[in-house]
């Protein structure tokens, strides 16, 4: 007989081995050498946490009690895996494109990022998983007890309870160490996945080893084993059809809905193609796991004394035959099954509890300030650790309360039925756009209530929670609410009864609730994203920035926030990016801030939708915005990235880049100007010279003479004007200008400018609100007038609309008076907006316009001297200039 101490030592060595494996895998992943850590085989093996201690020990007990019915628990998941093209592929794609972290996250995201739905799913999941966790503790404890009995001690309740407590503590330590190391947005845990893959191999080998020993060692070959089966108490094929079909369905549904299965299937999936391998490899794994179950059960029934617990045949058969090594191996298999399931299950549940319950509560108690600070990270990790311990403690508590006496399979089915209450919300949400959050919530609540009433509470035993009278006559004598005979329909198997009614009522409420209520815009958006995931999400996504959209964003923002606030917002952002003007780069952070601003006016969901529409072409899709905006994990990820990158460096680089662009453009412009200025100077000079030569020769009529003299005069005037401009500019730039301070009213200044702007025949219509223009000024009015003349003349010359119109608007911006001059032409292209105020810059080669490209440069110099400003205002539908007036003390 194996000594109990040896067994403990073996178990501890095995645990240490798992620790080392997990550490090594984490180290590998950290160094970026993930290679085979993300292979399809590891993925398939990690799915094996479906096979828990319930499978390892309980299946044999199940077979000993009910024949082949245990197979349904494996047939269902096999069909789901083989049929991955139906559901799994879509779930995995959604999981990747929406960066889903848990099944609660999936459902809450689908229904408009609804926090209450997330809470609801989390509660259902925790309630359903608690008995299952208890079951794992129980099976490990029982297997210890078997060996303890072998070495002469018979464990009482006291020893069992303390063993269960130690197992729970050990599991909590392992899970906390490896399950909360990183806060990856993708929630991948390489160390744990690796440990689970190893455990998957161990448990398969252990069960197959026991099976081979039983079939060839004890029974004497396959034929003899089949004869034994035919001679055994389970030889008759009397399987009730309802249970066969119902349990296959239940297992298939649970395979998708159990939080731990969702974790390994969807969240930890590294590559969609892995599913193709798993689609045959995982059914193969399940088949091998269940192949030897009936032989072990039959031989156990033959070999061991009547009344021994069939749930432990996997251990007791080798022990009875004196095969100690095999027994220890088998013990490690069962230990692996239990621990891997508990670890993943606790991680999945803890992620849900911390993300959907703890952190939202913490954030709302902190107000909005918490969103930007970096300490959220620490809080989430702490919340997750506490949740892991809390979930394990709940499992332990259930184990103690339930007394740990029930057959393993019964607890498993109860837990499955609870978990599948999530199925309707998940499937309907993924395949039907019409499902609403009210429908999902009512379905979940009703299904959960029915499960509680008809299966969970009665599972504590007759009279434990639900009194016998209620079981027989219904609550308050209401017959049709009897827990195991709803609507008076007696005689259905309790599990099938609960599965059928809970899912029927759940789905019914979901459907009815959905067609009677109206979804929020956000829900409709998410619904479309989920249902049409293959059309919406390319596999790889990244932020592509396009500043062409900054102007569109500004237009939208102006519509919602008002021109004033929008421009201030954009200008501030551009300034913080180190850019001049109104158009910042469209960075994720900027979009996030903008969206929050917009949400204040139109609500978060609409803001999402509106920005999404604008940004979609730039592949910044709506889901990216949503993530940036309100996914705490994403915010944290982003802020830590920002810290690492050093924002300052980025700003400087951007400013340098912009300056460089400007310089390059300018040097090209300057070359063009030199050519042009010589042309400008030469043309009048040439005509002056040739006409004066003609005049010198004499001998022409006086009218001709007068005409030629006139031409010479006009050309001289043009030359003088050009030289005046150059002189003016150089005086302004060198700061030697003397300002002639005067008091006046803006209206008069604009009047004079309009009169002087050479607006012949009214070619340019000027739209003014003279009543707004009564602004007192105290500055050099002549210079200011010069600016307006220039701007109006520019509009006349360059506005290319059919009926050119110039709108002159007086307003206030950042506490200062501004005058906006907006025409209805095609405006100035964005790449030119940066250089128009530079000297010698002209947008067209159209010399007929007559300027040398100095007008706006002069305007800017004047405004600088006057301590005002002039800027180009994008997003107004035409060329628009904003003159910020000198402030009046």
């Amino acid at each position, binding site marked *: 007989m194996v000594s109990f101490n040896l067994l403990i030592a073996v178990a501890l060595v095995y645990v240490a081995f798992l620790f080392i494996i997990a550490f090594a895998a984490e180290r590998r992943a950290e160094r970026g050498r993930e290679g085979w850590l993300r292979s399809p085989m590891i993925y398939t093996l990690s799915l094996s946490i479906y096979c828990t201690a319930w499978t390892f020990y309980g299946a044999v007990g199940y077979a000993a009690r009910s024949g082949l019915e245990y197979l349904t628990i494996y047939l269902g998941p096999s*069909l789901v895996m083989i049929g991955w093209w139906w559901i799994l592929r879509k779930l995995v794609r959604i999981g990747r494109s929406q960066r889903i972290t848990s099944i609660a996250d999936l459902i809450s995201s689908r229904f408009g990022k609804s926090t209450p739905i997330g809470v609801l799913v989390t509660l259902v999941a925790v309630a359903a998983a608690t008995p299952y966790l208890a079951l794992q503790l129980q099976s490990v404890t029982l297997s210890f007890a078997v060996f303890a009995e072998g070495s002469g001690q018979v464990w009482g309740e006291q020893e069992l309870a303390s063993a269960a407590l130690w197992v729970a503590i050990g599991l909590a330590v392992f899970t906390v160490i490896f399950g909360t190391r990183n806060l990856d947005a993708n929630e991948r845990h390489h160390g744990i996945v690796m440990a689970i893959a190893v455990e998957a191999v161990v448990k398969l080998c252990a069960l197959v080893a026991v099976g081979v020993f039983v079939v060839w060692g004890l029974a004497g070959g396959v034929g003899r084993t089949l004869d034994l089966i035919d001679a055994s108490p389970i030889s008759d094929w009397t399987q009730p059809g309802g249970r066969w079909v119902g349990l296959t369905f239940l297992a298939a549904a649970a395979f998708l809905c159990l939080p731990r299965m969702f974790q390994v299937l969807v969240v930890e999936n590294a590559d969609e193609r892995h599913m193709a391998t798993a689609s045959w490899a995982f059914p193969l794994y399940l088949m091998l796991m269940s192949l030897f179950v009936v032989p072990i059960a039959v031989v156990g029934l033959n070999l061991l004394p009547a009344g021994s617990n069939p749930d432990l045949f996997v251990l007791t058969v080798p022990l009875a035959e004196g095969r100690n090594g095999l027994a220890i191996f088998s013990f490690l298999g069962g230990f692996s099954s239990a621990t891997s399931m508990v670890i993943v299950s606790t991680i999945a549940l803890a992620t849900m509890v911390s993300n959907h319950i703890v952190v939202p509560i913490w954030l709302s108690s902190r107000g909005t300030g918490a969103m930007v600070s970096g300490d959220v990270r620490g809080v989430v990790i702490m919340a997750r650790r506490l949740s892991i311990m809390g979930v394990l403690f709940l499992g332990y508590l259930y184990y103690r309360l339930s007394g740990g006496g029930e057959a393993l399979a019964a607890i498993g089915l109860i837990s499955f039925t609870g978990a599948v209450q999530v199925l309707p919300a998940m499937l309907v949400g993924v395949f039907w756009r019409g499902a609403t959050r009210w429908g999902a919530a009512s379905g979940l609540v009703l299904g959960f209530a029915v499960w509680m009433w008809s299966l969970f509470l009665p599972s504590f035993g007759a009279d434990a929670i639900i009194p016998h009278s209620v079981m027989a006559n219904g609550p308050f004598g209401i017959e049709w609410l009897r827990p195991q005979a709803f609507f008076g329909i007696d005689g259905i198997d309790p599990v099938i009864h609960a599965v059928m009614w809970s899912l029927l009522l759940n789905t019914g409420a979901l459907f009815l609730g959905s067609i009677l209520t109206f979804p929020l815009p956000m829900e409709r958006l998410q619904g479309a994203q989920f249902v049409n995931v293959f059309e919406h999400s390319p596999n790889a996504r990244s932020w592509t920035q396009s500043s062409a959209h900054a102007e569109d964003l500004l237009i939208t923002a102006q519509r919602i926030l008002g021109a004033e606030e929008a421009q201030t917002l954009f200008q501030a952002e551009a300034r913080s990016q180190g850019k001049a003007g109104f158009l910042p780069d469209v960075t994720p952070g900027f979009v996030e801030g903008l969206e929050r601003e917009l949400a204040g006016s139109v609500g978060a969901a609409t803001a999402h939708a509106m920005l999404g529409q604008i940004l979609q072409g730039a592949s910044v899709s709506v889901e990216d915005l949503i993530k940036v905006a309100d996914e705490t994990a994403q915010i944290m990820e982003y802020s830590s990235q920002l810290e690492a990158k050093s924002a300052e460096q980025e700003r400087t680089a951007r400013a340098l880049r912009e300056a460089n662009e400007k310089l390059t453009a300018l040097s090209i412009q300057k070359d063009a100007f030199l050519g042009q200025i010589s042309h400008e100077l030469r043309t009048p000079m040439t005509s002056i010279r040739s006409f004066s030569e003609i005049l010198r020769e004499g001998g022409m009529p006086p009218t001709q003479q007068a005409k030629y003299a006139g031409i010479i005069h006009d050309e001289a005037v043009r030359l003088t004007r050009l030289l005046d401009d150059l002189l003016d500019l150089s005086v302004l730039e060198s700061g030697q200008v003397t300002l002639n301070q005067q008091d006046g009213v803006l209206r008069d200044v604009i009047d004079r400018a309009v009169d002087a702007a050479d607006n012949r025949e009214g070619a340019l219509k000027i739209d003014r609100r003279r009543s707004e223009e009564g602004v007192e000024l105290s500055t050099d009015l002549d210079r200011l007038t010069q600016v307006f003349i220039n701007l109006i003349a520019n509009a006349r010359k360059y506005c290319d609309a059919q009926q050119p119109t110039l709108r002159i608007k007086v307003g206030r911006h950042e506490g200062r008076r501004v005058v906006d001059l907006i025409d209805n032409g095609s405006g100035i292209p964005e790449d030119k907006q940066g250089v128009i105020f530079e000297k010698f810059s002209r947008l067209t080669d159209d010399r007929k316009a007559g300027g040398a490209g100095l007008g706006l440069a002069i305007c800017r110099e004047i405004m600088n001297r006057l301590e005002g400003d002039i800027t180009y205002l994008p997003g107004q539908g035409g060329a628009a200039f904003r003159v910020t007036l000198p402030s009046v003390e």
Partner: protein
Amino acid sequence: MGRSPKPQTFLARASYRQRRLRDAAKVLPIVGGLLFMAPLLWPREAVAEGGNGTSHAILYLFGVWTALIVVAFVLARIIRPTEDDDIQQPPEQSPGSGPQAGGR
């Protein structure tokens, strides 16, 4: 919101074959489910007399299971899951043309 392009109606021979293989992959679990349910239709009386229903059921069920795994293995080998996007344009259409440009 960008309009996603409609799935192609007519496909080249290779893409057509891929589509049908995918259909086969979708039908497989349904066939498997039906086959797994088939033993429920077996006559119970005969079993009661013969008394060896369970061993027959074991051979039948594990046989069907193995066959499903083999077929799934073959399908997983020949279906190219990387080309699984329903909106994937066949190569003869130039990239970025038509509605795709707005959809992505």
